[in-house]
C-alpha cells in the first residue's frame, strides 16, 4: 500500500509525527524539530503551487464529505496563513537552537520541540479547517501547547502568567463551543457551506456572538487582553515570538472566516468591534509607553497591533466588508513576521546585556548592534513606515476608511502610529545613546550567528511590502467560499 500524499494532509500530519518523535527521542528533539519544520514548509509551498494553479482545493477526510464528514480546504488566505506559520516557525526554530543552548536549559530544550510541533499541528489544522466543531478541537490543541510554551522558562512569573493564560484560553474555547452548539441547533450543520445557507435570526446572531466573544478572548482584543502582556513577556524568547507572532493569529483567522461566511454582522456590531480595536490601540499604547521592560513593551505592542487589525476589519462598515478583510489579512501577515523578529531580537539583546530594563539599556557597555538593528527594522514595519508590509497594511486600512468617509478610524490609526513611534523611540534612543556608559563601549560585541534568523525575519517584514500586490492577488484565490465549490 502506497499512501496517496496530499500536501494538506502532510501539513497537519508531519508536525504531528514530528512531535511524537521529538517527545520519544528527547536527545534528538532539535534535529527532528528542524527537519519537520523544513518538510512542513516544503509541503506548504507545494500546496501553494497547487492553489496557484487550480484555485481552492478540498480533501474530504474519510471520503464522506461535508456535512457528515470533515473537509479540509485550502484557498489563498489559508495558504497565506500556512506560509506565514511555517516560514516564521522555521526561522524561530533556528533561533531557538541558540537561545536554548544554556547548560541549565536541558529541560527546556527537551520540551520546546514537542510542544512547538503540537502547536504547529493545531495551527495548520485551523487554517485548513472548514468545520466549526473541528475548529474548536483545533483551538484546544493550540491552547494546551501554547500554555506549555508559556511556562517553559519555569519562573514563578511565567507560571502565574501561564495559569492566567490557560483560564482565559479555556473560557474562550468554552464560549466558542457553546456558540457552536447553538449554531448546530439552528442550522443542523457544522461546516461553512451549511452555515452560509443558514437563515439569519436573533438566536443565530446570539450564537455567533458567543463564538466571537470566545475568539476575542483568545486573540486578546481590548478589554479581553488582560492575560497577554504577562504571558508573552515572561516566556522564553522563541516561545514569545511564536505566541505573539503566530498563536494569536489563529483565533483572528477564525474570526475573519466566520464574519465572511455567516449571515452576521450588522453595522452596530462592526462599529463596536472597531471601537474595541480603538481602545486597544490607545490603552496598549499608553501601557507600552509606561512599560519598564523591553519584552513587556513588545508584548503591549501586540495588544496595539491586534486592535489595529480589528480597526482594519471595521474600517468601512458593513458595505466595505468584502474588501476590509484583505486589509486585516495584510496586517496579520505583517505583524506575524515583524513581531516574531522583534521578540527574537529582544531576547538576543537580553541575552547579551544580561537584563531588559529599558531605563538601563543605554548604560550597557555591551551593544549587540545586529540585534538592535533587527529590532529597529521590525519597529519600522510595526510603526508602518514604507516600504514595509506594515505600511501597506496600514495604508490600505486608511484608504478604505477614507473612501468610505469614516474619518474617525483614520484619526485613531494616526494617533496609534504616533504613539508607536513614541514607545519604540524609548528603546531606539537607548540603543543610540553612548554618553552614559563609563566603561569603553564594545560596540560590535555580541554579534552572533544567532542574529541571522531574526534579521532575516525583519528584512522579510520590510521586503514583503514590495510584494504587496501579488500577496493581495494570492489571498483572494478561492474567495468567496461558495463560489469555488
Amino acid at each position, binding site marked *: 500500500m502506497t499512501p496517496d500524499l496530499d500536501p494538506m494532509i502532510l501539513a497537519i500530519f508531519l508536525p504531528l509525527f514530528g512531535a511524537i518523535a521529538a517527545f520519544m527521542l528527547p536527545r534528538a528533539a532539535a534535529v527532528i524539530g528542524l527537519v519537520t519544520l523544513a518538510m512542513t514548509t516544503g509541503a506548504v509551498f507545494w500546496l501553494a503551487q497547487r492553489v496557484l494553479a487550480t484555485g481552492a482545493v478540498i480533501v474530504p477526510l474519510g471520503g464522506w464529505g461535508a456535512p457528515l464528514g470533515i473537509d479540509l480546504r485550502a484557498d489563498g488566505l489559508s495558504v497565506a496563513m500556512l506560509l506565514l506559520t511555517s516560514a516564521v516557525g522555521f526561522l524561530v526554530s533556528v533561533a531557538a537552537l541558540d537561545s536554548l543552548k544554556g547548560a541549565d536549559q536541558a529541560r527546556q530544550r*527537551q*520540551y520546546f520541540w514537542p510542544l512547538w510541533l503540537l502547536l504547529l499541528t493545531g495551527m495548520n489544522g485551523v487554517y485548513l479547517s472548514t468545520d466549526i466543531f473541528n475548529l474548536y478541537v483545533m483551538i484546544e490543541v493550540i491552547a494546551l501547547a501554547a500554555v506549555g510554551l508559556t511556562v517553559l522558562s519555569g519562573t514563578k512569573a511565567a507560571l502565574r502568567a501561564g495559569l492566567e493564560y490557560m483560564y482565559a484560553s479555556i473560557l474562550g474555547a468554552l464560549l466558542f463551543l457553546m456558540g457552536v452548539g447553538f449554531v448546530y441547533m439552528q442550522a443542523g450543520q457544522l461546516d461553512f457551506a451549511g452555515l452560509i445557507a443558514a437563515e439569519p435570526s*436573533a438566536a443565530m446572531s446570539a450564537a455567533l456572538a458567543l463564538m466571537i466573544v470566545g475568539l476575542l478572548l483568545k486573540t486578546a482584543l481590548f478589554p479581553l487582553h488582560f492575560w497577554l502582556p504577562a504571558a508573552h513577556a515572561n516566556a522564553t524568547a522563541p516561545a514569545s515570538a511564536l505566541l505573539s507572532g503566530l498563536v494569536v493569529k489563529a483565533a483572528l483567522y477564525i474570526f475573519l472566516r466566520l464574519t465572511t461566511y455567516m449571515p452576521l454582522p450588522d453595522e452596530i456590531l462592526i462599529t463596536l468591534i472597531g471601537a474595541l480595536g480603538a481602545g486597544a490601540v490607545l490603552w496598549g499604547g499608553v501601557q507600552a509607553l509606561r512599560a519598564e521592560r523591553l519584552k513587556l513593551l513588545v508584548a503591549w505592542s501586540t495588544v496595539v497591533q491586534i486592535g489595529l487589525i480589528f480597526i482594519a476589519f471595521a474600517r468601512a462598515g458593513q458595505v466595505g466588508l468584502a474588501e476590509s478583510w484583505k486589509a486585516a489579512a495584510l496586517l496579520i501577515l505583517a505583524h506575524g513576521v515583524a513581531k516574531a523578529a522583534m521578540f527574537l531580537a529582544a531576547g538576543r539583546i537580553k541575552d547579551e546585556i544580561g537584563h531588559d530594563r529599558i531605563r538601563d539599556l543605554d548604560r550597557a557597555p555591551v551593544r549587540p548592534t545586529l540585534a538592535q538593528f533587527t529590532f529597529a527594522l521590525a519597529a519600522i514595519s510595526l510603526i508602518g513606515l514604507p516600504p514595509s508590509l506594515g505600511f501597506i497594511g496600514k495604508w490600505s486600512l486608511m484608504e478604505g476608511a477614507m473612501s468610505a468617509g469614516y474619518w474617525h478610524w483614520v484619526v485613531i490609526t494616526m494617533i496609534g502610529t504616533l504613539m508607536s513611534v513614541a514607545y519604540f523611540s524609548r528603546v531606539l534612543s537607548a540603543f543610540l545613546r553612548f554618553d552614559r556608559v563609563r566603561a569603553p563601549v564594545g560596540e560590535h560585541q555580541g554579534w552572533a550567528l544567532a542574529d541571522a534568523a531574526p534579521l532575516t525575519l525583519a528584512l522579510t517584514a520590510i521586503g514583503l511590502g514590495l510584494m504587496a500586490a501579488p500577496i493581495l492577488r494570492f489571498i483572494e484565490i478561492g474567495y468567496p467560499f461558495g463560489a469555488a465549490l
Partner: protein
Amino acid sequence: MTDPLVIFDLLLALAIVALAVAALSVRDLYAMIVVFVIFGLLSALAWVRLSAPDVALAEAAIGTGVTGALLLKTLHHLRFASGQRSVSMTPTIPVPTGVMLANAAFCGLITLGLAVAFLGAPSAGPGFDTLVAESMPASGVDHPVTGVLLNFRAYDTLMEVVVLLAAVVAVWQIERGLSDAPAPEMGEVWQGFARLALPAIVVVGTYLLWVGAEAPGGAFQGGAVLAAVGLLLLLTRAYVPQPHHRGIARGAFVLGTGVFALVALLVAGGGRVAFEYPLDHAKTLILLIEGMVTISIAVTLAALFHGREPVALRMEDRHDT
C-alpha cells in the same frame, strides 16, 4: 404532565443548579470538591435522562471520577504547602470594585447571549440524525456514536487525543522546581481494597471499550475507568514511578495518537483519502484504534494524577508520589 419522570427531571434540574451554586459559594475547598463531585454525578444522571448514555459515562468517569481525584490531590498539595488542615479560598489581594463590575457586566452579557440563543433555538432542529442513520452500514460499526467518533468525524477524535497528549507533555515539562520540598505523601490505602477492586475495574474498563462498537461505551470511557487502576496502584504504592520508566511511559502516551494517525494515513491510496477505511476492515481497524487510544488515555490520566515527570531525585529518602 402525568408522567412522574417529569417531576424527577424537574427535581434533578433544580438539584444540579443548586449544587453548582453551592460549589461556587462554599469557602472550604474540601467541601467544594465534594459538592463538585456530587454535581458531576447528577449531571451524568441528567445526560442519561437526555438519552445520551455515552456522554453520561464520560461525565461520570472523566468529569467526576478522574477530575475529583485530581482536585483532591491538588488540595492535598495545598494543605501540605500551607501547613493547614483546612484551606479556604479567600483571596489574598482584594479585587478592585471596577474589575468586579466589569466582570459582572461581561458575565451578564454572556448570560443574555445564552438566553437569546437558547430561547430562539428550535426544540427539535435539523441535525445529522438521518444522515448518520443512512451512512451507518458503511461505517463498519453498529453504534451511531462510535460511527461518528471513529469514522465519520474520526479526524476530530484524533485531535481530541492529541489534546490529551499536549496536556501530558505540558504537565511533564513543568518542573516542580519552585520549591525543593518533596511531594507530600498521600494517605494510606488498604492493599486489600486494591486487590478486590483492581480486577473488577479492569473487567469493567475493557468491557466498556469492547462494547463501544454496538452500545454506549468506547475508548474515552473505558480509558478513564482503566485509569483508576493506575490511581490505585499509585496510591497503594504497589507501583512507584521510576526515572528509567520514562521511556515506556512516553511510548504509552503517544501510542494512541501514533497508531490512530498511522492508520488514517496508511488506508489512503488507490482512490481512497486519509481516514477512509476499507469497509471489510473497518471494524477491525476501528477496534485497533480504540484499543490503542484506550491504553494511552488510561496511562495519560494516571500520569496526570501522578503529576510530574519521574526524575532522578537527589536524596534517596524522598518519596516521589
